[in-house]
């Protein structure tokens, strides 16, 4: 091969350019700490990395959702605990009031406390979380009960929060499950005095209590209780009027209402536990995806550093040989 000056020059320039671009790419890896800096570096891995990023992103979103659902449910849980405690007190007071040894004065005191309790409970039923009435279902702009003896204004819908790609969780408790009589069994009972009492739950969630005389036909009184709070109010009135028969008839709802609270408490407790487990699970998955992502896209610094050292060494060798070649010519020796 007839090597001439241009071939020599071109070759050295091309080699220098090649080494320089190699060192540039290695340096890019070192500064970004990533081995994939654009799709064409490795299309398959780039797509995988993007998918992992989306997964990590959605996990973060689910964790945020869980935080919010957790807040809502914990708020509801506190209200339920208060309700449960209050029902205990109602139960205590009623048992006390029904005691034959009590007189009308003490019953008046019981009536007054029950009245306070009814108002307190209305406050709980109409409590707001971040501007929404939490026991109203979707109708969060309306209080579930405008007054003690009003019908339920909310609905039975669950506020769905997504906590996983496929799982959802209702983050609220609706008032109908706590304060209405939809699930009250239609029963009747006979009192010690031989009076018949009939319980009939209505389609609007209220409860009709019919008190009949011994003959089981003469209706002494029909009481319509709109909701359980109304029940406490009516109980209070019965004690105020020293009417133990009515009080006894209404007393039946106390255990029912308390049980409803306990069912919801259990449900909320289970949901909170599930959220906690789900959060832990998400954090584990998050870690796995982040690790996979790192495996795909992160550069091994030691490897890149030694790569740079390698290129540098060959670049120096190239410069040295170039300077030797260029400094010599036959013309130097023709004196």
């Amino acid at each position, binding site marked *: 091969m*007839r090597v001439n*000056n241009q071939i020599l020059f*071109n070759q050295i320039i091309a080699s220098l350019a090649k080494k320089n671009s190699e060192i540039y790419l290695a340096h890019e890896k070192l500064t970004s700490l990533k081995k994939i*800096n654009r*799709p064409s570096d490795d299309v398959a891995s780039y797509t995988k990395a993007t998918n992992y*990023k989306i997964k990590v992103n959605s996990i973060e979103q689910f964790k945020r959702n869980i935080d919010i659902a957790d807040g809502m449910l914990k708020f509801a849980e506190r209200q339920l605990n208060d309700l449960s405690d209050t029902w205990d007190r109602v139960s205590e007071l009623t048992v006390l009031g029904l005691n034959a040894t009590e007189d009308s004065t003490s019953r008046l005191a019981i009536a007054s406390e029950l009245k306070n309790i009814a108002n307190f409970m209305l406050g709980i039923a109409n409590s707001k979380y971040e501007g*929404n009435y939490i026991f109203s279902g979707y*109708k969060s702009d309306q209080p579930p009960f405008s007054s003690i003896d009003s019908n339920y204004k909310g609905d039975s*819908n669950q506020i769905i929060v997504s906590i996983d790609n496929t799982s959802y969780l209702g983050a609220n408790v609706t008032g109908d499950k706590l304060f209405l009589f939809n699930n009250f069994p239609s029963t009747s009972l006979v009192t010690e005095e031989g009076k018949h009492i009939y319980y009939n739950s209505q389609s609007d969630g209220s409860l009709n209590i019919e008190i009949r005389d011994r003959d089981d036909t003469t209706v002494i009184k029909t009481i319509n209780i709109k909701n359980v709070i109304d029940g406490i109010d009516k109980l209070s009135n019965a004690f105020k009027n020293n009417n133990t028969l009515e009080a006894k008839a209404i007393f039946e709802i106390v255990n029912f209402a308390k049980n409803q609270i306990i069912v919801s408490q259990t449900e909320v407790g289970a949901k909170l536990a599930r959220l906690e487990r789900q959060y832990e699970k998400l954090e584990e998955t998050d870690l796995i995806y982040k690790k996979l992502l790192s495996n795909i896209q992160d550069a091994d610094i030691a490897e890149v550093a030694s790569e740079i050292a390698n290129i540098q060494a060959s670049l120096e060798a190239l410069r040295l040989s170039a300077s030797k070649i260029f400094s010599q010519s036959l013309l130097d020796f023709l004196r």
Partner: protein
Amino acid sequence: MSILSIFDIGKTALLTNQTAISVTSHNIANVNNPDYSRQEVILGVKTPVKIKGGYLGRGTSIDAIRRSYDKFLTDMLFNQESVLGRSSVLKDIISEVEEFFNESNREGLNSVINNFFNSLEDLSVNPSDISKRIVVINKTLELISQFKEMENRLVEMGNSITNEMSIITDKINSISRDIAELNKKINQLEADGVSRANDLRDKRDALLKELSKYINISYYESKDKTFYVSVGMRNIVSGGNFSEVKFLNTSQGSVFKVENGDITDKITGGRISGLLTAQNLINNEFLYKLRKLFGSFTNQFNLIHQNGYDLNDNTGVDFFKPLTNIHFEEFSKNGVITSLNISDYSALKFDEYYINIKTGNVYEVVNRYTNQIVTSGNYVSGGTISFDGIDVVISGSVTDGDSFLISPLKSSIKDAALNIKAPEEIAAASTANSPWDNTNLFNLINLKETSLGALENKNIYEFFHVLTSRVGVLAASANDSLKFDETLYNEISNRKSVVQGVNLDEEAVNLIRYQRAFEAAAKVIQVANELYDTLVKLV
């Protein structure tokens, strides 16, 4: 036979070696000119004279000054120059497009789509929260502007490609003018039939090489020394004459013509070929898919949004501004589109269609990208042609070959805007009068996982990933082929240089060689002179 003839022989030797030294100097002077072909002196012997006892030499002469030239290698180099021109353009453009889509180290479309859905998720846990609704609005505006920016960048890139095409066309024309001029000069200089215009031929080769970089050419020299250069089977240079290449930027794409003959399809090499391919990729693939993605996504989003109720209990409202402006072009003498409407948004596919008129007054609606027939029928002036949710009315007499372009795609990003005016108008609920109802939000959020028919049965993420991967694959292969083509080019260039290049050591040796010969020739003349003197002194 006289002593004087020795002077003559000496003189031929002196002059010949002097010329050889000139040629050597010329070589040395051009050592760094890549287009230069090494020249050498071809020595001959002067016709001898007959004397008693045989023939006596009369000295030396120069038969020719020849350039070292390999036609095969030169052809290969020009060819490779075209290949390299094409692949270097493709690499430059696709690498730039790749940067638009690259989200390794910064936020892009992917993250904007993510942020948008995240804001909806955040709203879903408290759908009546106005501040969260405002976040959704902001994220939507970001989404729209990011898509617009992306479209804009691609459109700008397409514009700069068109500009470069027009600049290159001018360059091609100015080079062919120069070649035609050179042809005239070469013909004049070589008119004696013996001399070779070495340096002008080198110059012409340099121009041909530059021309090859822009467009793939073929060339030949006929027996009567007329030099032709042609592009796509059409001569752009014939001897001293040249024809201009014309560049037309039409709505259907770029067209190149020579003397009214369309050569676009025959351009397979050179920068222009790379630009044509890149332009095709940008317009018919990247922009097409981007617009399709955004159009299909927003349209589907609207359809779901319409089902929901907002905080003011309104329903049936579009979230994004719905597509109303359908782009169309008419390629017909008498037929005009008198009405163009969307009849069914849920059937919209965001494609481009040609309504082609065939013989027998039959129309055919063809998908521009897949070439599949969408529908067909008998043409009636003023009749409605319906396909994929679009109603078109064409009036007037049409003839065979007429065509109408209908594109619901073209302005899908350009006209994009938010339709709702206030944050309260986000329809989160599926039932009226339910501020905490988030079920419609879930329907909207689920859209990110839904495979859409208009998006080749992929969800929006998958569709976008396929597009990004495609750009990545194209960029990787453009990189690889550029590397390969460069190596091959250098290889051929070196091989050509082996034949044509100047080696200074070699020239130094020649310099000494001819100098010594020159000195010897001078000595011959000195000897002849002394012989002459000797004779003169005898007298």
